[in-house]
């Protein structure tokens, strides 16, 4: 068990000849608290897997340091870091039985055989593998094999952290739910740090206490699912989390308030001082409502998704998404909308402008 800290970590893979290195990870300063359940969320290629491999020691970062409880471990080999890692695709030792596969990490650490047996049986029970324990691992189906991989990651109770790299990709949806809640249950029982990489926001939001959103080699925001939803710090977070994502429009700022196509928008977070760069205003579809006076729009499309409806509106050439309740009426003539001032925010070069005066 340890608190894992990244200090100015950057990493670049060796570039093709004659080119400048491209950083897969760009300056990460991050603390993973002991016992936390984290989800690492981001699109493919944003550096999630690189980050995991740096924690487990499979990669040494080009720059910066990693500390476990204040001790520098940047150049420690994997075996000294006490990290368990589960990969996207099943990794099993084909030549061994299921039992031996699960027992492998324990036996390697010289655990007594009676304890090994007890622990393996416990894990096998949790993953529904008890009936297969004596079979050879090679004969199992893909999701059976992935369950072994998961089991091997979970079997040790003395690890500093367990890292999951999109572990449920090959598992069918029904079993996915089940395994995810098992993982969560286990986390509550054992209290070991878990970091779960995914590009599926539902998976991230249901598993984690804290979600770390990565984009283009940077950690753009760390927060609880509610924080990410209510206060996205980067336009990417706004648009990646939520369905549909946040509306982002270019705007100008006048007297600390955004002006969108000559419509002055009210916001409770007034910007202080001058801003330079690309200015945008962001509002989630959930925080838009119909109003008597407001921005005139045209309704282009209505999608009924059961409990709510998604409306596609246009104003000038901008497309605006809006979410309303299933039973809410849609004005027939001259619809006008209004943005909720508490949830209308200004972004400068994609980052949230945080220096604001509460109006």
């Amino acid at each position: 068990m340890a608190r894992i800290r990244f200090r100015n970590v950057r990493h670049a893979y060796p570039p093709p000849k004659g080119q400048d290195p491209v950083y897969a990870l760009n300056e990460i300063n991050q603390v993973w608290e002991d016992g936390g359940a984290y989800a690492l969320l981001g699109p493919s290629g944003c550096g999630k897997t690189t980050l995991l491999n740096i924690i487990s020691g499979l990669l040494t970062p080009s720059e910066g340091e990693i500390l476990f409880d204040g001790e520098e471990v940047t150049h420690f080999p994997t075996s000294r870091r006490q990290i368990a890692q589960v990969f996207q695709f099943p990794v099993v030792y084909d030549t061994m039985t299921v039992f031996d596969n699960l027992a492998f990490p324990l036996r390697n650490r010289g655990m007594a055989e009676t304890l090994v047996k007890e622990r393996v049986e416990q894990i096998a029970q949790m993953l529904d593998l008890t009936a297969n324990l004596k079979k050879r691992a090679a004969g199992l189906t893909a999701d059976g094999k992935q369950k072994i991989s998961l089991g091997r990651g979970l079997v040790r109770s003395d690890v500093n952290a367990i890292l999951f790299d999109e572990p449920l990709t090959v598992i069918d949806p029904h079993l996915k739910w089940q395994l995810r809640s098992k993982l969560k249950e286990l986390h509550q029982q054992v209290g070991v740090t878990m970091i779960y990489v995914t590009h599926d926001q539902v998976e991230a939001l249901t598993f984690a206490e804290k979600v770390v959103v990565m984009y283009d080699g940077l950690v753009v925001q760390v927060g609880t699912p509610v924080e990410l939803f209510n206060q996205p710090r980067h336009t990417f977070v706004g648009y990646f989390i939520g369905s549909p994502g946040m509306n982002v429009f270019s705007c100008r700022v006048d007297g600390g308030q955004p002006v969108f196509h000559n419509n002055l928008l009210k916001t409770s977070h007034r910007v202080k001082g001058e801003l330079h760069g690309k200015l945008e205003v962001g509002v989630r579809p959930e925080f838009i409502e119909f109003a008597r006076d407001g921005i005139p729009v045209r309704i282009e499309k209505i999608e009924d998704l059961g409990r709510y409806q998604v409306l596609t509106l246009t104003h000038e050439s901008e497309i605006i998404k809006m979410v309303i309740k299933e039973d809410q009426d849609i004005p027939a003539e001259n619809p006008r909308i209004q943005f909720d001032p508490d949830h209308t925010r200004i972004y400068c070069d994609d980052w949230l402008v945080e220096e604001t005066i509460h109006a």
Partner: protein
Amino acid sequence: MTRSTKWLVPTLYILFLMLPIYGLVSMSFKTTTEILGGFSFFPQEFTLANYKVIFTDPTWYNGYINSIIYVVINTLLSVTVALPAAYAFSRYRFLGDKHLFFWLLTNRMAPPAVFALPFFQLYSAINLFDTHLAVALAHCLFNIPLAVWILEGFMSGVPKELDETAFLDGYSFSRFFIRIFIPTIAAGIGVTMFFCFMYSWVELLLAKTLTSVDAKPIAATMTRTASSSGYELGLLAAAGSLTIIPGAIVIYFVRNYIAKGFALGRV
């Protein structure tokens, strides 16, 4: 083609394929006089005398022993050296890796005759001439590149995560390689050994150039077509039939994996 004639083409093919082998085997049971006398499909005077000579005359049976010794040394040597090399090619990226890998293959393009003379001179200089080791080492020239190629294909089929998981599980590299990795690619090693065995077994030129008496291979003995007692064609046919047997035994053990080797395009 109708169902009833479907068997025709493969049967004819196999028949033509087997014909020379049948000729050889049938000749080995004939006397030399009968062979020289004219063509006959079955031995008129069935005789085991040819085989008896081979199994009793040391100049003949030593040929087999010599061949087997250097082939086995060569196979073990090639696979042992190729395993780490193939691992490096399949797992690491380094400067010029692709060129080096292709260059290995080009070693197979040069005819062995090119190397016969320098090898002869070198081995004579270091007193390796006419030893089993000399031939085994010389055959490494084409067998190591082959082994690296075949093994690399099998190793690349094993996900890199297997290595990473083993390291995370607390295995050192050498323990992982011996305890986990080698058993995982056992089929590939079997196929590789078969091909090393085969190429070394059939190679004549280097084996003949680098030996004189003590390590003379069976193929070299067989080039002796005539002796003081005239032509010995029956004897030659018997010796030829026997050279097929070791290969047949080896292929029996790897028959299920060979197809995989071909599928990888590495054989």
